[in-house]
């Protein structure tokens, strides 16, 4: 009995032991497995979980916009769709090629070639318009996808094309301000992780790093799009009328130094920049270095007056238009004898200027023009801002000095000329030009006085004579205000040395002539058949000035008949539309021509224009003394019938 009991206990112990061992094995296995998963597989499994429940998203910010001084858009980025394919997912190559070809206008052969490639990603067409994108979506083609990109748009098309430049398809600035300010304008990238559920829907449970502002920063220019357009039109008209190769113009506000317009012709549309030649993309106003010719003479006068080498009344012999110096001839267009300094500028005598330059001396002249900014970068944020070409003073000989005195043998840019004239208009104190309102640029140094206010006024006075008296700039006169100006007709240097038969016509105007508000500088390369700045450019500059003054509400009334009218610019030149724009109630409603004698010319014209006639004016003055048809005659039925008013 005891033996059986002992055996039974032994068997139970064995069973218990087996169970314990089994348990121990199971637990060891479980713990081992857990340890294996945690310690060895943990990192991999964690990554798998992340892949399943988390998704990375990349957000690209749009490029910043460019605005003019009034907040008008000059350049901006908008969303556009781009088409790409994953050839491995394309089921029907021929069918897909056919449908895509129909929607996108790409040849089927080209599409088939792309669709047959063994690649995971191929662009088909980038930055398509919304209508085409919708058609692609509706076609539901397997393996064909749309993605969103930003496309750069310039709403004003050609306006300020060279100044703004353009950016490439990947949103990188390639030319102009787009290139210069690329770091500021470019949109940034933000990468962040979001959770997703079992069906792949994304959950934004917190900001997850998306609080970062990825949009590029804007810039605000000093350019006024209206004045830019006015300047571009006047420049284009002038270049086309005189068959010029190219032209550049700039308008500057004196009080602020703001560049209101910077124009180039020929122009191009940055929206479709690839359709024009890279040569046209150049911002010639800032990059092209040319000999300024006589538009440089006011700076010679300022230097000579500042160094007290001359007074405005000091006489120089202009050698009857031809003067030999060191074996070379200097010629004048007009043959003049003895002239005072102010008339040397008025009639633009090269010989007189050369003699003033020789009295002034190389060192004085070179230092003076260097202080005005010639030979130095202007500091405007334009890629490739040029220094111009002013050789060291030590390398100048007598001929160089004589030629440099009338703006030959030196190279400057349009922007440099505007900057130097800004110092003149600012009474001899330098002032930086400003092209960008915001972000503001730091000014390193306090403005420096280059010459005295008295000298500035004397030079301005001489420049007023150029326009207001019988100088070379008469065609820039604006009745009712004074204009200070200077013409320039520079000979172009020949590539093989010496000077050829090509010219650069230029004109600079400061308006009003006393205490100028605006500076307008324009040049036209190789105009034909006429090449004089006073003929080719002055009328265009006048157009810019009058439109600028009108835009700011500063265009004055015509005070009285001026020498301009006497010279043939009569009121008959007034456009019909302009006259029609100011209807007045007059005694013209009857069937007979009223008596206009004794009436102010303006009122008489209003009466005739209201009846549909534009009169011819004869004589000078503001009061009608005689009329045709006579008072009391029937109104002619033919609106082209001759109507004449004699005025005195």
């Amino acid at each position, binding site marked *: 009995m005891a033996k059986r009991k002992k055996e039974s206990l032994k068997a139970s112990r064995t069973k218990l032991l087996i169970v314990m061992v089994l348990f121990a094995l199971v637990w060891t296995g479980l713990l081992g497995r857990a340890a294996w998963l945690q310690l060895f597989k943990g990192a991999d499994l964690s990554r798998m979980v992340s892949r399943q429940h988390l998704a990375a998203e990349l957000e690209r910010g749009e490029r910043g916009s460019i605005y003019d001084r009034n907040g*008008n*858009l000059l350049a*901006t*980025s*908008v*969303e556009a769709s781009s088409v790409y394919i994953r050839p491995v997912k394309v089921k029907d190559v021929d069918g897909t090629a056919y449908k895509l070809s129909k929607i996108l206008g790409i040849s089927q052969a080209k599409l088939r070639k792309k669709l047959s490639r063994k690649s995971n990603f191929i662009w088909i067409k980038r930055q398509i318009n919304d209508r085409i994108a919708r058609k692609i979506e509706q076609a539901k083609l397997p393996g064909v996808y749309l993605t969103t990109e930003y496309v750069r*748009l310039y*709403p*004003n*098309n*050609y*306006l300020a094309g060279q100044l703004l430049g353009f950016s490439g398809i990947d949103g990188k600035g390639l030319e102009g301000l787009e290139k210069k300010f690329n770091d500021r304008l470019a949109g940034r990238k933000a990468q962040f992780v979001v959770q997703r559920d079992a069906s792949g*829907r*994304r*959950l*934004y*449970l917190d900001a997850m790093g998306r609080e970062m502002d990825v949009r590029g920063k804007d810039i605000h220019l000093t350019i006024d*799009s*209206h004045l*830019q*357009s*006015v300047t571009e*039109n006047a420049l284009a008209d002038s270049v086309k009328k005189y068959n010029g190769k190219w032209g550049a113009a700039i308008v500057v506000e004196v009080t602020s130094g703001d560049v209101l317009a910077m124009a180039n012709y020929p122009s191009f549309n940055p929206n479709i920049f690839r359709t024009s030649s890279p040569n046209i993309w150049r911002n010639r106003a800032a990059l092209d270095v040319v000999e300024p010719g006589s538009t440089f003479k006011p700076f010679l006068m300022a230097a000579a007056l500042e160094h007290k080498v001359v007074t405005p009344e000091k006489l120089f012999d202009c050698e009857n238009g031809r003067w030999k110096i060191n074996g070379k001839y200097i010629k004048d267009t007009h043959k003049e004898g003895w002239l005072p300094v102010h008339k040397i500028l008025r009639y633009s005598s090269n010989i007189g200027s050369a003699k003033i330059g020789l009295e002034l001396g190389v060192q004085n002249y070179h230092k003076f023009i260097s202080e005005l900014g010639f030979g130095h970068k202007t500091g405007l944020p334009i890629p490739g801002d040029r220094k111009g070409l002013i050789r060291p003073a030590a390398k100048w000989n007598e001929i160089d000095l004589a030629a440099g005195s009338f703006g030959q043998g030196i190279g400057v840019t349009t922007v440099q000329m505007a900057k130097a004239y800004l110092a003149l208009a600012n009474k001899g104190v330098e002032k930086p030009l400003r092209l960008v309102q915001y972000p503001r640029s730091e000014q390193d140094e306090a403005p420096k006085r280059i010459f005295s206010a008295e000298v500035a006024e004397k030079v301005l006075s001489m420049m007023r004579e150029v326009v207001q008296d019988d100088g070379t700039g008469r065609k820039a006169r*604006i*009745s*009712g*205000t004074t204009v200070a100006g200077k013409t320039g007709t520079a000979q172009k240097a020949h590539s093989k040395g010496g000077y050829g038969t090509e010219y650069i016509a230029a004109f600079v105007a400061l308006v*009003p002539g006393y205490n100028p508000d605006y500076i307008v500088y324009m040049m036209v390369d190789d105009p034909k058949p006429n090449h004089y700045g006073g003929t080719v450019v002055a009328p265009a500059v006048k157009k810019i000035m*009058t*439109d600028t003054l*009108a*835009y700011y*509400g*500063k*265009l*004055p*009334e*015509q005070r009285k008949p001026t020498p301009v009218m006497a010279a043939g610019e009569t009121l008959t030149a*007034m*456009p019909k*539309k*302009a006259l*029609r*724009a*100011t209807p007045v109630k007059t005694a013209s409603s009857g069937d007979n021509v009223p008596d206009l004698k004794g009436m102010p010319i*303006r009122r008489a014209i209003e009466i005739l224009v209201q009846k549909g006639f534009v009169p011819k004016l004869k004589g000078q003055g503001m009061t009608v003394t005689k009329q045709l048809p006579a008072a009391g005659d029937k109104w002619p039925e033919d609106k082209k019938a001759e109507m004449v008013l004699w005025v005195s």
Partner: protein
Amino acid sequence: MALTLTMGSALILGLVSVWLNIERVDKAYDLRPMEKRLDEQEALAAKLEVERNNLLSPIRLRELAQKYGFGPASQGQIRRPAGKAKPQ
């Protein structure tokens, strides 16, 4: 008694926490389409702004002005209300 209250409070807090989390997930689901709609509206606004600027561009306005017989004010056509800037 205190133990019962503590356990009850813990249970309520737990339930509130669960409820808030469910709400949070629901809102997260709603947020995505709303963000998408906002992006679409912003993109449309940007395109309309470009269109507006294109329609108001100086070149187009000049063409329209010429078509309808308008032009820049010439001398004698500017009237200034009393007290405003005077002609020079």
